[in-house]
């Protein structure tokens, strides 16, 4: 079998890229190191009969264009819940539940009235940034026609925000979310909501500059036509990858699991294929990597084939994650203080204040995990009972902040970390520990080892102003093509970034195909 394109990595972006390439007639082979496709968008069994999303657990960014083009619904993507509530729990019984512009619970009357206005405004700004998602970042010099059109579209879109909102966008774009929240609100739990969306998955605290951009980035997502909606894919996040896989397979994409690419074959500045861990050499006119750029260019291509300055830039990308994942198999539905049945079917944010989130960030800066991390919890088995044995449950929690590197190393620190996280969880859900029948905790080091995420980072590289757009992943590779001819990138480390969105994979496919047309 001969292939025109090899995609290294079957993360959801690699699968998206492969499906689009195949859609325009390419013969695509996807090589995945793991025994399972999906990368960080996967579902796994953590105890016999208990299945839960390995990493990503909430879907809110999957691009509608991709859903439609690849007919993911026809390929089996279903939702067990389409637009879930977010409930902030302080632990002492105080709770605030939000669904879109509605906020009920512990919130002042003023803030409750202000919330829909604020949220609509943020959504509007984010909406006007949407065109950016499916365009290649502008070249720093010398643009082509299609790029000018893209820029025009984006420029038009931002202009059409109107004077007042545009001014607000310019004011808040580089701001921190702590100040933004304080600008609009007094009630502690609403501030938690706003800042949690900004910091989850990043190595930023609420007071880190640029955290507002991260919030807007998340809000660019619109699922099933509802902007800002969060959904639970039926069967866990692996269902998204599964649908992408089938969308590719029907167009002839071949997938080989358990095949780690060891080397990208480069001669005379051009890539011509790959070598797998077993020594097998597979040739193809184009190679597209779903792995991060450092791994792709330094480990797989090799220093001798790239410029030294480029290598330095690539190696300096800030990609040390601060996010861990805790998955639990439970014999009973936990009892979260202050949460009603509806809240348990949705998303829970566990912390009492925005200040506490910033405090939780502090130890992570100095090689320690927070004993009081921000937790984002879902219990998907509430709406998707098939994930666990009857009457039992699975709980999925994102633990924000645990640094990639801890003093004395994760190997020895994982147990005490797990104890701390469980104790913290117990504070919000008394008795939960007694119902645990299986635990799977992934530190950032584990996320790197198991999923290849550099530094365990959710976005393959910090989502910060200096690592966005034409600087993402680095200048000189921001338009999916790398300095090595015929070698492209398609992962979360590229524009626009991570999250289960597929935009990077889509844009990469477009860049690969544009090259073919230009040739």
């Amino acid at each position, binding site marked *: 079998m001969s292939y025109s394109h090899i995609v290294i990595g079957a993360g959801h972006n690699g699968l998206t890229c492969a499906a689009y390439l195949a859609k325009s007639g390419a013969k695509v082979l996807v090589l995945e190191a793991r025994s399972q496709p999906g990368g960080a968008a996967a579902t796994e069994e953590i105890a016999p009969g208990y299945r839960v999303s390995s990493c990503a657990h909430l879907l809110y960014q999957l691009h509608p264009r991709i859903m439609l083009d690849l007919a993911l619904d026809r390929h089996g993507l279903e939702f067990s819940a389409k637009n879930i509530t977010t409930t902030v729990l302080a632990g002492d019984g105080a709770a605030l539940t939000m669904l879109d512009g509605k906020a009920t619970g512990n919130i002042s009357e003023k803030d409750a009235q202000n919330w829909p206005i604020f949220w609509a405004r943020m959504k509007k700004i984010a909406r006007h940034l949407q065109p950016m998602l499916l365009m290649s970042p502008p070249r720093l010099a010398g643009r082509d026609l299609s790029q000018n059109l893209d820029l025009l579209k984006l420029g038009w879109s931002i202009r059409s925000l109107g004077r007042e909102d545009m001014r607000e966008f310019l004011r808040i774009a580089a701001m921190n979310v702590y100040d933004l929240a304080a600008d609009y609100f007094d009630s502690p739990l609403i501030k938690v909501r706003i800042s949690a969306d900004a910091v989850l998955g990043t190595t930023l605290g609420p007071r880190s500059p640029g955290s507002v951009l991260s919030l807007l980035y998340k809000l660019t997502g619109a699922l099933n036509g509802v902007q800002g909606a969060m959904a639970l894919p039926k069967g866990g996040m692996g269902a998204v990858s599964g649908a992408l896989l089938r969308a590719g397979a029907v167009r002839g994409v071949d997938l080989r699991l358990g095949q780690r690419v060891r080397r990208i074959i480069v001669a005379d*500045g051009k890539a011509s294929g790959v070598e797998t861990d077993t020594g097998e050499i597979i040739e193809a006119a184009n190679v597209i990597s779903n792995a991060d750029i450092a791994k792709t260019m330094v480990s797989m291509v090799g*220093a001798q084939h790239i410029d*030294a*300055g480029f290598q330095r830039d690539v190696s300096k990308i800030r990609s040390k994650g601060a996010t861990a994942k805790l998955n639990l198999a439970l014999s009973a539905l936990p009892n979260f203080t202050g949460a009603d049945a509806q809240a348990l079917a949705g998303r829970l944010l566990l912390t009492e204040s925005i200040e506490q989130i910033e405090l939780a960030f502090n130890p992570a800066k100095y090689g320690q995990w927070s004993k009081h991390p921000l937790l984002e919890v879902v219990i998907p088995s509430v709406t998707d009972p098939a994930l666990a044995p009857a009457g039992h449950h699975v709980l999925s929690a994102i633990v924000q902040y645990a640094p990639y590197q801890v003093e004395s190393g994760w190997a020895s620190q994982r147990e005490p970390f797990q104890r701390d996280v469980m104790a913290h969880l117990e504070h919000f859900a008394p008795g939960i520990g007694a119902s645990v029948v299986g635990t799977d905790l992934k530190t950032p080091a584990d996320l790197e080892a198991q999923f290849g995420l550099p530094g365990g980072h959710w976005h393959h590289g910090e989502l910060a102003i200096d690592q966005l757009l034409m600087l993402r992943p680095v200048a000189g590779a921001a338009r999916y093509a790398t300095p090595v001819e015929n070698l492209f990138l398609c992962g979360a480390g590229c524009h626009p970034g991570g999250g289960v969105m597929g935009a990077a994979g889509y844009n990469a496919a477009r860049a690969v195909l544009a090259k073919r047309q230009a040739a």
Partner: protein
Amino acid sequence: MNYSMKIKPDTVRVGLKPTPFIDRLRPLNKFESLAYWQGYWSPADFGNPEREYFAIRNTTSVFDLSPMTKYRIKGPQAEAFLQRLMTRNIAKLKPGRVAYTVWCNDEGKVIDDGTLFRLGPQEFRLCCQEHQLFWLLTSAAGFDVSIHDETDEVCGLSLQGPTSYSVLRALGLAAVETLKPFELRDFSFGPGSIMVSRTGFTGDLGYELWCAPGQALPLWDALQSAGRDFGGVEPIGSTALDMARIEAGFIGAHLDFMPADQAVRAGRAASPFELNLEWLVDFNKGHFTGRAALLAEQKAGSKRCLVAVDIEGNKPANHALIYHRKKTEVGHISSGIWSPTAKRNIGLAMLQMPYGKSITSDLWAEIYVMRELKWEKRMAKCTIVKAPFFEPARRRATPPGAY
């Protein structure tokens, strides 16, 4: 974490750094005429640069090379590392040989030039003008190679001039006559040995002698005695050396090119093509930093070119602007002198293309001369010629003539 740093008073150096030869050179440097060279004590002249220059061309000159930045590069991947760093094909450089080479940044602009000594299959010494540790270490990531700054561990003397071979023979270096240009070899000297390479910056017959600092003064003294029968071994400073290097057509950092890593303004750094060094660029050897940019430049054409010019008259044209038809400014002279040996007014000039390549006539240097406190402007006609301006056969002859 402890960020405090203690500086011991005796580790803080004040003033210029001495070289191992300073005790001999300082008494001769009557006017305390120094030139800046990476913070070392380095003479600009010893009172009479013309006389020093003529020693280069007529007898033997000696120049203290110790401030030269030197890096020892070794390890199993030393060659692979240098292949990626340098524009030249280092695989072709055999142990015992020296190569002149440049290295570029990603944009294909020259960071510095230097001489690379291959001491063994896995061992090299790089000699250059600018400090390069940052770039070398940056480039070393991913290679099994070690890089060590040995500037202060190795001192050097450049012995240049027609009688330099005779002096070395008198010094007792066995079979030194078989040393070919760009060859290096160890010779026993005193209780130890010195390394001699047939290299230099003058375009003349000459050698560079490298040794441990402990041997510096014995070597100096021995050279002075060895030279007695050959018109002496004249200490020279950088002014005389600079004249010789311009005659030889060699370029200098901060003179004829701006090191790319130090250039702040856009467009100031120069590529090897622009410096007329395409012979140093090997696109067939595999990848090297700047390769893609240089290929693109080759395809699109360079913006500038360095040419050798012969300037009418005898007024040195250093830094003069160059005009086409006396009207359009098209470049400048980056190095210019009256050449005492060629008896011509010479210069290296950086011209905006197409001047220098397809338009080569009607070029004029705007020279200002001060005459009794009054500036006078001369427009002197420039003719593009081939460098070097002076290239004696003795430079290459092996065995060299016993002048």
